[in-house]
């Protein structure tokens, strides 16, 4: 049933070239003195990296991206985890609510979500339009299944009924049971969800661009600005984005033993 060895080597070699050449080219470009006439860069320098890192906007946009990613992941884990436990133990039939919400998040691309939110909330007197609040809420909507899936899988993998029963027979109330018994047991699931949400929001461009524009510049917004006027510095920023995505998916593998991309945590609309 295995593929012919020669054919296999050719297929894999072409695949590897396609996947790796753009990454290496971007890295070399960010360190080249000049590279538009020769096959290899004419010389190497760290000047572009130094310039781009020393800019004030670099630290600011990086900080903004960390802030919004961290805030979204934290808010989603607080919203999802206790409710998911509650539904799993007390009203398992209503798990369907989570499924429907996940399908919604999954099926609405960023551009359409942004339009729908702007259209509705521009007519509502809440401090949302053009603020980071609406960005945070939109990111939560976008990432909902990434938090719910791993938490639900963790809840399914432990015997929550026996644990809850044991805790309650020893006098623990619902809150104590959740904090002291359930939470430690599903921590790997929460951590996976947290990391998935973090890396998704960190790379988020569409919602930020359309909902808050230049009012709150994140790292991807900064990167796109640079692609318009300085290629070498933009490529340094692109490398940083790739490294962040790679580090988070490695952490994810360590935390949960699972790949970032199981068909359960798909995102659409890059």
């Amino acid at each position, binding site marked *: *049933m*295995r*593929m012919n060895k020669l*054919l*296999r080597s050719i297929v*894999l070699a072409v*695949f590897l070239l396609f996947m790796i050449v753009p*990454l290496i*080219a*971007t890295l070399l470009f960010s360190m080249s003195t000049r*590279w538009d*006439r020769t*096959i290899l860069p004419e010389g190497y320098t760290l000047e572009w990296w130094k310039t781009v890192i020393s800019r004030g906007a670099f630290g600011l946009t990086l900080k903004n991206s960390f802030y919004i990613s961290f805030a979204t992941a934290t808010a989603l884990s607080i*919203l*999802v985890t206790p409710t998911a436990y509650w539904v799993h*133990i*007390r009203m398992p039939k*209503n798990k369907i*609510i989570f499924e429907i*919400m996940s*399908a*919604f998040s999954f*099926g*609405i*691309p960023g551009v*359409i979500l*942004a*339009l*729908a*939110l702007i*259209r*509705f*909330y521009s007519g509502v007197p809440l401090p949302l339009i053009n603020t980071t609040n609406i960005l945070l*809420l*939109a990111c*939560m909507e976008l990432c909902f299944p990434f938090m719910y899936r791993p938490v639900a899988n963790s809840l399914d993998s432990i015997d929550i*009924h026996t644990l*809850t*029963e044991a805790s309650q027979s020893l006098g623990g109330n619902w809150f104590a049971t959740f904090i002291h018994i359930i939470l430690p047991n599903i921590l790997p699931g929460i951590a996976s969800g947290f990391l998935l949400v973090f890396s998704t929001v960190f790379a988020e*461009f*569409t919602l930020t*661009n359309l909902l808050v524009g230049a009012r709150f510049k994140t790292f*991807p917004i900064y*990167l*796109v600005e640079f*692609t318009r006027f300085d*290629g070498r510095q*933009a*490529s340094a920023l*692109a490398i940083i984005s*790739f490294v962040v*995505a790679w580090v988070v*998916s490695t952490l994810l593998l360590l935390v949960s033993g699972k*790949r*970032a*991309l199981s068909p359960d945590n*798909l995102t*659409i*609309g*890059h």
Partner: protein
Amino acid sequence: MKYATQLLNKSSIKTRGLNWFALIPLLIFSIGFQIIPIISLISSSFSTKEGLSIENYQRAFTPHIAEAFRNSLKLSFTTAFLGVGLGLVVAYAIISTEKKFMKNALIALADVTTNFGGAPLAFAFIVTLGSTGVITLILKSMGVFLYPSFRIYSISGLAIAYLYFQLPLMIMLILPALQGLKKEWWEAAINMGANSMQFWARIGLPVLTPSLLSSFFILFANSFGAYATAWTLTGPDVNLITVQIASLIRGEVQLEIGLADALAVISLFIILFCVGGYLLLSTKAKRFRT
């Protein structure tokens, strides 16, 4: 073991009410940020100053907008089709690899690169295949001139960039299905005198069909909803539907918000059709997995 659940499920009206009480934050979130905005989007797409009308939809059929839909559909179909076909071949090559290290490294690569979308990816392709990109320069030195007949900043350039995330996505989607093809089926077929072609035509591909189709739907939706990569790579030059909606939102084009609503609703139906197809077929695909 289920005693606790029974204990907790005492179905007095009081506890029922309490059960739902705990769901309030979640439901507020869902209603406020999923359901109401989408419903209001749909309803406003059908309304104009004069009241209920399909005028917004009629305006969507200007040649320019029709071209945007055609381009988006064509791009999604092409990258989904190529993604499914090539992804299947690469995934098959990956699981045929004997060395465990090599296999894991390839899967890890596919896993990470699925997330390399958007702006950084678009830029990496400018560096690789732009007018002074490394591949362009290498080909030039061999006497092959990519430019001006090919441009990375065009729809075909965009298709290549999209394949960069479509291909690994397909690999990750199809690997479980390929691993579900049992060696015993192969052995049984061969023992009964089948050749490799017959095995694939009669057993392999029919078993994989639901997975291939459901992956096609996902890849199609993935590409149809994509915006960041397209916008970074080509700006407003390539006429795609997401680019149109975004420029209407930013008010770059004369403010025609009703038109944006209509375009968004049509796109949403196309995507939800794909997501529905995916959900339906992926349950079917799981039948063969144990």
